[in-house]
């Protein structure tokens, strides 16, 4: 609701002055810690600001140079592509399908099984990233890693030889809980009699999902895909596992931005890339919203 309609309606009967007084602390905090840094990033993106050297003291305004530079930067293209692979593999496919699959199977499972699986999946989600990253390093390590011990092989350095695949599996494991819970509640809203009708006419599991379940939960699928895509695109945990390596093979955009800013000290350039990532996020969000709107 805009300020104008608030003023004319004043539904709460507080009076404008008091209403403003109530929301101003929150607005102040949001402005200070969210809006200002975002605007500041755009500003820095237009300068040649660096971490060290003369430009760190007196950055110069360089216009769109950083943005144009990004278009020519093969590493930026690489990061963009890897982010796309990461999002498609671990969010749109991995978390989505696994989350739905678990929700669908657990529906008819014994309550005990259901509780245990849900608890385990949730655990992967609520543990701090640092802990989880450390655990996965321990699992995937070449020497004495749990996976190699299980496979009885001593020679595969998973995070080095298959960095993107490792990250995709990791992030699928890490984030499936959200999709699973969202789909569980969505499935609970599908009338059982419709599912049973499908059973009596002899529909297979796949036919039931496609013809009966999916049309009911289409909105949930879109919302879920939007959220997990954005979270995955902006996720920094890959840095803790592979630090973007080896040789930029797993350098997704957030990792690339960090490397540019902290390792290379190119604050201006990394701010410009951050802004581009923001734009990508917005475009993706708009696309999903458009799809959602078209449905209803």
């Amino acid at each position, binding site marked *: 609701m805009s300020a104008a309609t608030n003023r004319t309606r004043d539904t709460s009967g507080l009076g404008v002055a008091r209403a403003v007084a109530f929301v101003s602390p929150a607005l102040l905090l949001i402005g200070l810690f969210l809006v200002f840094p975002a605007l500041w990033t755009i500003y820095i993106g237009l300068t040649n600001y660096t971490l060290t050297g003369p430009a760190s003291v007196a950055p110069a305004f360089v216009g769109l140079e950083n943005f144009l530079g990004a278009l020519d930067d093969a590493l930026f293209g690489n990061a963009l592509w890897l982010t796309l692979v990461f999002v498609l593999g671990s969010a749109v496919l991995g978390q989505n399908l696994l989350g739905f699959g678990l929700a669908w199977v657990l529906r008819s499972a014994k309550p005990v099984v259901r509780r245990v699986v849900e608890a385990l999946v949730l655990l992967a989600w609520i543990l701090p990233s640092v802990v989880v990253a450390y655990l996965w390093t321990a699992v995937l390590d070449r020497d004495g890693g749990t996976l190699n011990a299980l496979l009885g092989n001593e020679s595969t350095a998973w995070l080095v030889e298959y960095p993107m695949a490792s990250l995709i599996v990791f992030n699928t494991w890490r984030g499936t809980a959200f999709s699973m819970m969202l789909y569980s509640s969505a499935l609970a809203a599908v009338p059982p*009699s419709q599912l049973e*009708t499908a*059973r*009596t*006419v*002899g529909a297979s599991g796949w036919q039931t999902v496609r*013809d009966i379940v999916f049309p009911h939960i289409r909105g949930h699928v879109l919302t879920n895909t939007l959220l997990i895509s954005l979270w995955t695109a902006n996720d920094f945990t890959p840095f803790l596992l592979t630090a973007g390596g080896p040789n930029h093979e797993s350098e997704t955009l957030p990792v690339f931005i960090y490397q540019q800013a902290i390792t290379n000290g190119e604050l201006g350039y990394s701010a410009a890339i951050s802004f581009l990532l923001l734009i990508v996020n917005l475009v993706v969000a708009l696309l999903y919203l458009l799809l959602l709107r078209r449905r209803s």
Partner: protein
Amino acid sequence: MAAIELTGLSTVYPNGVRAVDDLDLSIDDGEFFALLGPSGCGKTTLLRTIAGLERSSSGTISLGGGDVTRTDVGKRGVAMVFQDYALFPHMTVAQNIAYPLRVRRASKQAQQDAASTTSAGLGLAELLERRPAQLSGGQQQRVALARAIAMEAQVLLLDEPLSNLDARLRLEARTFLKRLQRELGLTTVFVTHDQAEALALADRIAVMADGRIRQLGTPKDVFQRPADTFVANFIGSTPMNLLTGTAHDGFVEVAGARLASPDLSLADGTKVVAGIRPEYLAPAAEGITGTVSIVENLGVTSLVTLECPGDVLVGLTVPEHEEPRVGTAMTAAPAPGRLLVYDAETTRLL
């Protein structure tokens, strides 16, 4: 089309409720069969067990001579209409009706043909392109029936098919359903808790209580000779008078009156329950005498409640214009041969 044969069938829910309890039943090919009983007696569970939606705990089910006890739901050839109709909201009426064919991967043409022929028989031809949300309750019910028929199943199961319709529509749908069943000749089992519906529609009725069948018979049997006091109480639009008393040679003594009873050669003084329908009691010179306490207008007749000696209440129906005044005394006697005598202990008909 097929006969249904149930032997020793039990269905126990995980929480221990024996919803169907060691039940034997055979339903003939082409029969229109009603499962009737109060709420919670296991009607829906029995229907779902026949469909295969609930697993039976013991006993066998056979359809058309073949044992299907362990057959998958989808392979039993059983069509079911749920109480809420379970129409797919995102499909048109035509798609809903043709869905069983789509599942079998029938050609588009075959699906269209099925939708149009089935819908024509049910007066839905104009509505094929609508969505379920754009239909009235009665139309939705017919779409659900059409979809079940399009399945070309051996057996049709209906769970309270009319209970979501308003009273007027229910009467129309009842007639419609009976005609449809006759035309299709499809073995049909329907569940209802409305005795009038069961009496009106069914070839035979099973009256259930606590997961068992209390009485099995034609509507006439069940109405005229209820097998026990439970059925007697349940069947009939006005509750049957069940009067406790004692038997004597050739008559029963109830509510301070002596009524001629069928010859049952009971020992003198046996405790019995006399059952008389209000419709079969009529004003008479001799019989049960009491004070008129309530008069309820039922339309063509009125239900009069008499307060008899020993605080016993007796109901009888009288034709319109012959209602007695409240507070006056009245005497009524049962029509010949309409008095039923139940054992007071076992509650069975003697």
